[in-house]
């Protein structure tokens, strides 16, 4: 999409008919597979599953899962709600027999006794990120033992 925007003025300047340009620049259409059911929807919101002084597990449940079998849960986190500059990703595998999928992400290398804020997203092993509407959550790590 970005390259199309960059190239379009140049194409117009060269008097290439727009229809021809889009036919040439459009990415190949994805295969028509009916199981690609669309964006995921969070049915159980992200929450802290457990935390130690330096690690935490964040989990959420999504429905309308489709796509590659291996998928990544991603947590963007930081110590201020507007500075989620760190991220952690954990792979999981989709079992197509289940109507929903639990994503769990392992955060490690955290500071003890510290409040963290986070949002979540998920990705397929290849391709575009899933569209999730994630609230900002928070948790506090345990003090050093």
């Amino acid at each position, binding site marked *: 999409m970005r390259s199309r925007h960059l190239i379009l003025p140049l194409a117009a300047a060269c008097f290439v008919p727009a229809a021809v340009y889009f036919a040439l620049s459009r990415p190949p259409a994805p295969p028509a597979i009916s199981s690609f059911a669309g964006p995921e929807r969070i049915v159980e919101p992200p929450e802290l599953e457990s935390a130690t002084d330096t690690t935490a597990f964040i989990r959420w449940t999504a429905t309308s899962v489709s796509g*590659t079998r291996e998928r990544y849960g991603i947590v963007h986190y930081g110590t201020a709600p507007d500075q989620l500059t760190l991220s952690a990703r954990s*792979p999981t595998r989709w*079992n197509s027999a289940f109507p929903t999928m639990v994503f769990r992400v*392992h955060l*490690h290398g955290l500071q003890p006794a510290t409040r963290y804020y986070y949002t979540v997203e998920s990705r397929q*092993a290849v391709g575009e990120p899933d569209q999730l509407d994630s609230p900002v959550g928070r948790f506090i790590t345990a003090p050093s033992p």
Partner: protein
Amino acid sequence: MKCTLRENRLIFRCIVASALAAVPAAGVRAQVSVPQSYVIPPADLACILTGNRVDLQCLIANDPDFKRIRAEEAGLFNEALAAARSNTLDPFHQIETLGKLEIFDPRLSVNSNLACSFCHDPAAGYGNGASILSVFTGGANPGSVPITVHGAYPNNRMAKRNPQSYVYSPYFPPLQYNPTQGDFYGGNFWDGRATGYRLMNSAAEQAQDPPVDPEEMANPDTACVVWKLSTGSYKAFFEQVWGRGTLDIAWPGNVATICSTPKGAASLGGSATPLALSSIDRTRANQAFDEFGQAIAAYEISPAVSAFTSKFDLFLSGNGTLTAAEARGYDLFRGKAQCNTCHLDGRSNTGGSGAADTGAATNVAPMFTDFTYNNLGLPRNPVLPWYSENTPDQWGFTGNPLGIGFTDTGVGLFLGGYYGPPPNLSWGQLEPYFEGKFQTSTLRDTAKVPYPNFVKAFMHNGYLHSLKEVVHFYNTRDLYAQNVPSGQCRVGTIEKVTCWPRPEDPNNMNMVIGHLKLTDAEENDIVAFLGTLNDGFVSATPTARPAIQRKPTTPPPS
């Protein structure tokens, strides 16, 4: 000996204190834990050193499992040799028998003292067959080369991992990256490095590695294996299978000297082909080495190894039933525990959604693996002698210069160039996504043991010692996670029961597992189900089939 009752009342865990009495000041120290049922064989007691180390030379000479394995090995080799000489085998069984001869032939190691089967005991499901190694070395086996440097530990070259079973390994396809799924499928070895790309047979290429691995059979040149085949008791049979003249190679005068020098010896100057052969003979030797591997794969796929004769196979055929515990375990396996997300069972899936299971077998020969790779987040197993192999042996070879600093990243090692560039150079960029991952092994024969109370080593580093521990780890890895090294769980917790030390490699850790919320009884049911995957429940011999009523043939016109 200090024993602690496990909270679920099923498993005791004992800390072997006898060997902790006087710990030397230097080197890697490891706490050893074993099931209560295990008793160190009296013959091995003198082989246990301070610091929970073991005298490998002492074990090789005395351990009862080692003696059992060698006796089995000799018996199976002689059985195969008799079959080869019987002149009764059809071509199909000839190549299987050739592979059997090769697998049970200790001559094929540099010191003629170690067969493939030494690390792949048939009675233990073709994995490590020595309880003492499961406990003290993570299942890692001694190779062909003793280490005689005074005071060195270990005093034998040792493989860096618990040997992976080769049951059903030829059913694993050649390794391929699937760009649509963004995943690797197939290959052999824990880290997938036996890709099978050249022979289009992962198992055949896997079989070619240990004979020239310096830590294992240690031949300095693949042609040395061929030379041994050409001078062995089944040379004629090899040529009967692969063609007359296959082994006609002009060997140099120093072949015996070169081929008795272990791989990695400084005197070989780092050459992978120290045998000086003409280009024609080198090509012929390479071809014969390929055929050597292909014959082993033929044996591995034969009913002798990959039999499809388990209780579960009988159940799939509709001719057998599972016990109540096994059936509950199976429901959990493909339901709450989600084991069949990766260990494909060939059946329809209830998915825990209440949907009806038609019971129809979608695959009557399921492999119980999807041929992918995962990082389970296993803690480091510090008892692996590999971590101590950081000084040169008497040949000038150092197996692991990094010592305890070595991190086993599995597929990451392969893709990252630890063994040299991967054959498909574009795969190298995928290393960050596969670091820490190891092959999803088949579960077939995973419960097989040579005798009750045998201690089996599970996983690539042998950290787990029973299927109960394996299932408990999958169930509670994250529930009982502690950010501590192996052996240093906090007071009041018990390692492998209520404490799982931090993973050796935390990257790409699979999150299907870790907090399955299974009860202790449910864990036990899954273990019961896994026992149904052992081959040998039904006979591998073709049984009588229903008589076929043939139409009478029309008599030819007179």
